[in-house]
């Protein structure tokens, strides 16, 4: 069964929200924190509702609503959301007030908004959508789980479309904590030079991307979602290569049938070495582009890559500044995303015209 990406919307540290603007011109940042460029929410969400929403909820809901609008669809057959950390700033706020006020005289607002299903729930509430609604919170596989759920729902043929996406926010506290775990570069870098730094660590990011997947084609489809595979904690590059080979075989194609590869390079010297070796082992003749310098690294960043791939196929154009791409002549019919988060959560997503 074929699955069509009918529409998309993406709020990220780049000018990605209005998809007519694709290919976007890359925004350069200095420093290791890439925050989303947020649209004017009043144009997208009911003003009374906007005031009550926290930042991550606004980002997620706005991306979801814009995605539906791009498809000309009022309400989807199902809503499936992925988020690794959920509503961090509400969680931090409620935790902070428990400590500061010693468990007394607390306000419920941040607690109410802290639950991980808040974004999916608010989308349903605004659309008055009573259909299937699920939220996956599986770290670096949260978006992949949501995508698999959406694919299964379409194969079950009880609905013809599914709104699916992911959202994660970066807060001052989460940056402080994850820095102590050594995730980010110690020196300040420019995102446009991220892959030239040859040092440990990456840069932090955030974003919300949503897609309307459908079981029937429509004239304005971006692309087709051919397949997805995930694998956890591979031992070495050879094991990653074996997974890629098996994935391509399962789709009856070779590496040479792929027009563009989008990698999960994030500027960390060890992480990126995998992709350099995969270029020698499998993608010898392929062109590789990268995306994490544009949106920063976070557990659900792969949804940015899916948005990028779908829109490259939609427009036939690759945004400048996405990496090693040299020729502009070849057709862009089939894109493979080879992503990973923290070298633990690896995923392969195949998107075609």
């Amino acid at each position, binding site marked *: 069964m074929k699955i069509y990406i009918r529409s998309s919307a993406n709020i990220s540290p780049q000018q990605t929200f209005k998809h007519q603007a694709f290919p976007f011109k890359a925004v350069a940042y200095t420093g290791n924190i890439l925050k989303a460029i947020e649209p004017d929410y009043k144009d997208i969400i009911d003003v009374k509702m906007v005031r009550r929403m926290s930042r991550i909820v606004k980002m997620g809901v706005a991306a979801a609503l814009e995605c539906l609008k791009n498809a000309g669809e009022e309400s989807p057959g199902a*809503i499936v959301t992925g988020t*690794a*950390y*959920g509503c961090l700033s509400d*969680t*931090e706020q*409620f*935790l*902070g007030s*428990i*400590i*500061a006020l*010693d*468990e*007394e005289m*607390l*306000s*419920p607002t941040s*607690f*109410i*908004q*802290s*639950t*991980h*299903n*808040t974004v*999916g*729930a*608010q989308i*349903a*509430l605004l*659309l*008055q*959508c*009573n*259909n*299937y*609604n*699920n*939220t*996956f*919170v*599986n*770290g670096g*596989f*949260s978006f992949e*789980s949501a995508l698999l*759920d959406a694919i*299964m729902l379409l*194969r*079950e043929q009880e609905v013809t479309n599914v709104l699916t996406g992911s959202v994660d926010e970066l807060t001052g*506290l989460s940056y*402080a*904590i994850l820095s*102590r*775990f050594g995730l980010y570069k110690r020196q300040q870098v420019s995102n446009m030079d991220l892959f030239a730094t040859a040092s440990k660590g990456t840069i932090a990011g955030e974003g919300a991307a949503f897609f309307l997947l459908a079981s029937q084609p429509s004239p304005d489809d971006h692309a087709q979602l051919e397949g997805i595979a995930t694998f*956890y904690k591979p031992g070495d590059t050879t094991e990653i290569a074996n997974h890629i080979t098996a994935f391509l075989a399962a789709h009856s194609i070779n590496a040479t049938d792929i027009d563009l590869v989008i990698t999960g390079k994030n500027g960390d010297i060890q992480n990126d070495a995998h992709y350099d070796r995969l270029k020698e082992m499998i993608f010898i003749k392929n062109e590789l582009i990268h995306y994490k310098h544009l949106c920063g690294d976070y557990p659900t960043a792969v949804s940015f890559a899916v948005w990028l791939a779908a829109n490259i196929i939609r427009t036939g154009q690759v945004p400048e500044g996405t990496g090693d791409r040299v020729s502009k002549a070849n057709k862009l019919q089939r894109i493979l995303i080879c992503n990973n988060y923290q070298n633990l959560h690896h995923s392969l997503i195949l998107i075609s015209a």
Partner: protein
Amino acid sequence: MQIYNKHTPVFVAGTGVISAIGNNVPACLYALEHEQAGIGEISYLSTLHRQQIPVAEVKLNNKELSLLSGLPAGISRTALLSMIAAREAIDNAAIENLSALRTGLISANTVGGMDKSEQFFIDFLADHTKGKLRDIVYHECASATKLVADQLGIRSYVTTISTACSSSANAIMYGARLIKHGMLDVVIAGGADAMTKFTLNGFNTLMILDNEYCKPFDEDRKGLNLGEGAGYVVLVSEKVAGSLKSDIYCKLSGYCNKNDAYHQTASSPDGKGSYLAMNGAIENSGLTPSDIDYINLHGTGTQNNDLAEGTAIKRLFEPRYPKMSSTKSFTGHTLGASGGIEAVFSSLSAKYGLIYPNLRFKTQMKELPFIPETAFSKNEPVRHVLSNSFGFGGNCSSLIFSKIS
């Protein structure tokens, strides 16, 4: 890949549970039969609300849970609880050639390792270079799932779901669908949540906690009691079920996930989402409402939930109401674990014909033409059990467990 078939059966082959009424399935069953609630004064959680708010805690400290689970005592209590119940479930299923099968773990929780994050934050908020990193490493919901998957050696598919109080019902539904799609042979599905200051204070600010023992579906109900625990069922394909030496429990014959789309924390007065979930599960199973013999209610004991759920039941089942009860009158509301724990109780109900009492029920709700069961009974003619899990964000899910005839 095998093509999805709606009619591919999925069976429950094992169960595991830890809750305030017992550390395993037989202990919980004993308490249910002898009407021993697990609710009481707070004795493990460190909080200002001790002696003020009754809760249903698992009666073991983290050291004791560590010994029982084989995991270190310093990790999140949620992971310890999850491990104990998940292992009981897979041991109980006694699948001989498990390593040759594609086995998944679908686990749910609502606040991950919040019990540890709250400790970390005390020092961290005062100074961002302080706070032990080993206390924040369990923060994300996926962390408990990962620890349990690693310990049980599960690699084929692992994921985590969080949809508030319906979390583990959705984990079970998702697990069953993975089997129907031919992606997995065996799935351990359910959820866990430990008592935390975060949730206790959160529910307290919403003013929906009863300061006495909760009275679900009673006219004079005042709110819910929070609980903690974990519950898992082992779902298997027909092929695996046929290879088992032990008796399978029942068939998971139907499920449905709907959204109330009414309010972030409150249910719609007519229980629209609850109605759609129950009705959808019955349709999904190919049954009619008259086939349901027992409903394990969501039944939190709040004014809002019980009225919404009751109104939806009235609409769906009128005029012939199945027997029903809320086992939250024993276990408290275990949030992300509740769908898993109640799936275990529902599986036992379908297998042995058990009906559980709804403790402390006195007065019929004036809006409803039915009352819950007040006595334990066994060897009842239970063919199909409906288990409800409804929650924040309007997430409503219902599961149906059917006796194997």
